[in-house]
C-alpha cells in the first residue's frame, strides 16, 4: 500500500507547514508561531474532517503545486484563489485521487491561502507543533520542490460546503488597539493613533506588520531612554526608535527592548496577516 503523502512539485514564493503553533514556550525564547490566519486554517481543517489544529500548508501568493499519493480530500481557504486539479478549475473542497495534481493560484484580496488535506500534514512535531517558525528556525524548512510530506490517517468525515466566503481585506484596515503596557512613553498616544494614517510596508512578514506613516513621538521624559527588554505578546504594537509602529504576528521575538504602545486583540490579527503591502491602516484605540 502506498504511504499517504503529498509531493511538492512547485512551492511558489513561500509555502510553509503551519498549525496553531506552540504557545507556552516564550520563557525559553521560543515564539508561538502557527498560522497567521488561524480561522482560515481551522475552517480548511473542518472542511476535510480534520481536528481544527491539524497541520496544513500556508501558501503565500499562490504558486503551489502538490501531487497526492493516495485518495484524500483537500480544501483551500483564505482569500479567493484559483484551485486547479490536473489543470482544471475545481471548487474547494475537492477529492483527490492518487496521482492528482492540485495547484493553488495567486489570491486576490489577501496574501495567504490555507490548504488542508484529510489526515493532516504529519511531519514530526517540535515542541508540540509542526509549525515553521521563520524567526528561530524551529519546525520544518520552507517547502521546496521534491519535498514529500507524509499525511496522517483521516480521522473524521469531510464536511460538505457549497459556498465558502473568501477572506477579503477591504480598501482600508481599521485595527482596534488596547493601549498599554507602555502608552505612557508616548505623547498623546490615543489621539495620535486615532488620527494617524499608516500603510503596510513591503518589509512586513510573519514576524510582524511594519507600518510606514507618521512617527509616534515619545514624551520629553522618555525621549532617548532605554527600556530593558521585556516580554511581548502577539499583537503588540512596538514602536522602534524611528517611531514607526510594528504589529507583531506569530513569529515575533519573545522579548523586545522598544516600548509597546498598545496591543491589537487576537480577533483582529488574521486580517493584518492577510494585508498586502500598500494597504492603508488606521487604529481604533479602545477604552
Amino acid at each position, binding site marked *: 500500500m502506498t504511504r499517504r503523502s503529498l509531493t511538492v512539485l512547485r512551492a511558489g514564493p513561500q509555502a510553509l507547514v503551519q498549525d496553531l503553533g506552540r504557545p507556552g*514556550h*516564550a*520563557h525559553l525564547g521560543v515564539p508561538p508561531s502557527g498560522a497567521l490566519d488561524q480561522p482560515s486554517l481551522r475552517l480548511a481543517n473542518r472542511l476535510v474532517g480534520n481536528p481544527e489544529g491539524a497541520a496544513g500548508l500556508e501558501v503565500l501568493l499562490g504558486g503551489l503545486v502538490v501531487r497526492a499519493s493516495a485518495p484524500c480530500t483537500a480544501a483551500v481557504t483564505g482569500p479567493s484563489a484559483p484551485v486547479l486539479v490536473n489543470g482544471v478549475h475545481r471548487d474547494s473542497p475537492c477529492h483527490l485521487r492518487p496521482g492528482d495534481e492540485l495547484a493553488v493560484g495567486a489570491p486576490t484580496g489577501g496574501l495567504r491561502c490555507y490548504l488542508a488535506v484529510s489526515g493532516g500534514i504529519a511531519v514530526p512535531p517540535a515542541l508540540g507543533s509542526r509549525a515553521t517558525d521563520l524567526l528561530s528556525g524551529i519546525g520544518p524548512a520552507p517547502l521546496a520542490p521534491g519535498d514529500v510530506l507524509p499525511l496522517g490517517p483521516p480521522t473524521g468525515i469531510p464536511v460538505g460546503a457549497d459556498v465558502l466566503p473568501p477572506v477579503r481585506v477591504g480598501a482600508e484596515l481599521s485595527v482596534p488597539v488596547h493601549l498599554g503596557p507602555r502608552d505612557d512613553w508616548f505623547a498623546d498616544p490615543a489621539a495620535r493613533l486615532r488620527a494617524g494614517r499608516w500603510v503596510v510596508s513591503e518589509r512586513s512578514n510573519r514576524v510582524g506588520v511594519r507600518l510606514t506613516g507618521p512617527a509616534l513621538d515619545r514624551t520629553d521624559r522618555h525621549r532617548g531612554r532605554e527600556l530593558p527588554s*521585556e516580554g511581548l505578546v502577539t499583537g503588540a504594537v512596538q514602536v522602534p526608535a524611528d517611531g514607526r509602529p510594528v504589529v507583531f504576528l506569530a513569529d515575533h521575538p519573545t522579548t523586545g527592548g522598544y516600548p509597546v504602545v498598545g*496591543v491589537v486583540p487576537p480577533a483582529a490579527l488574521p486580517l493584518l496577516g492577510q494585508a498586502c503591502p500598500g494597504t492603508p491602516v488606521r487604529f481604533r484605540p479602545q477604552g
Partner: protein
Amino acid sequence: MRLRRCGTDAVLVEVDSLGEVEAVRAAVRAAALPEVVEVVPAARTVLVATRPGGLPAVLEVLATADPAHRAGVPSREVVLPVVYDGPDLELVARTAGLTADEVVRLHSGATYSVAFCGFAPGFAYLAGLPGPLRQPRLDSPRTSVPAGSVGVAGEYTAAYPRSTPGGWRLIGRTDAPLFDPTRDAPALLAPGDRVRFEAVG
C-alpha cells in the same frame, strides 16, 4: 510592583530588581493556574499571558504575591562543563586587572541563576556574575559566534545555544546540549534554574 495592561489577556508586572522578577515568576508558576499560557520573566518585568478570560485569576495571585520573598517551586541545579579558551579571555582578564587563570577561577567559582531567556531559543541570561567580570560588550559585535560559546556582558553570563551574531566577550565554550527542539524539555536552562560552570580540558 506595578501592573501594566497588555491587551485583553495579559498583564506586564513591573518590579525593581532581578530578585523581585524571580519572586513574581515563581509565585505565578507555583499557583499552577490552568488559564495561564505564558510566564515570561525579563530584566525588570514578568509578562503573564492567559487564555481568554483568564486574567482575573492571575490578578488574584499577584495581589497576594510578595516580590521580596521567593516562594514555591524549588530550583534545579545544572552544571555546564567549559573549556576556558575563548578569544576574549585575555581581554576580560586585562579589563579586570586579573590573570586568565583568575578569571577562570572567578567564573567557575560562582553560582548563577537563570534570570530569563530571550534573544534566541534556549539563550539564558545568567545572573550572579562576579563584579570584576561585569564588562561591556565588544565595540564591534561578531557576525557569527560559534554555538556553545560562553561569554559575559554587563551583569550577565551566557552560553550561545547556536551560532548567531553576538557582541558578548567570549571566555570559553561548552558542549552541553543547550537547546534541542525534539526533546521533551527542549531548553537545558529555564528561568529559576541554578547554574554552575566547571572548568574542563
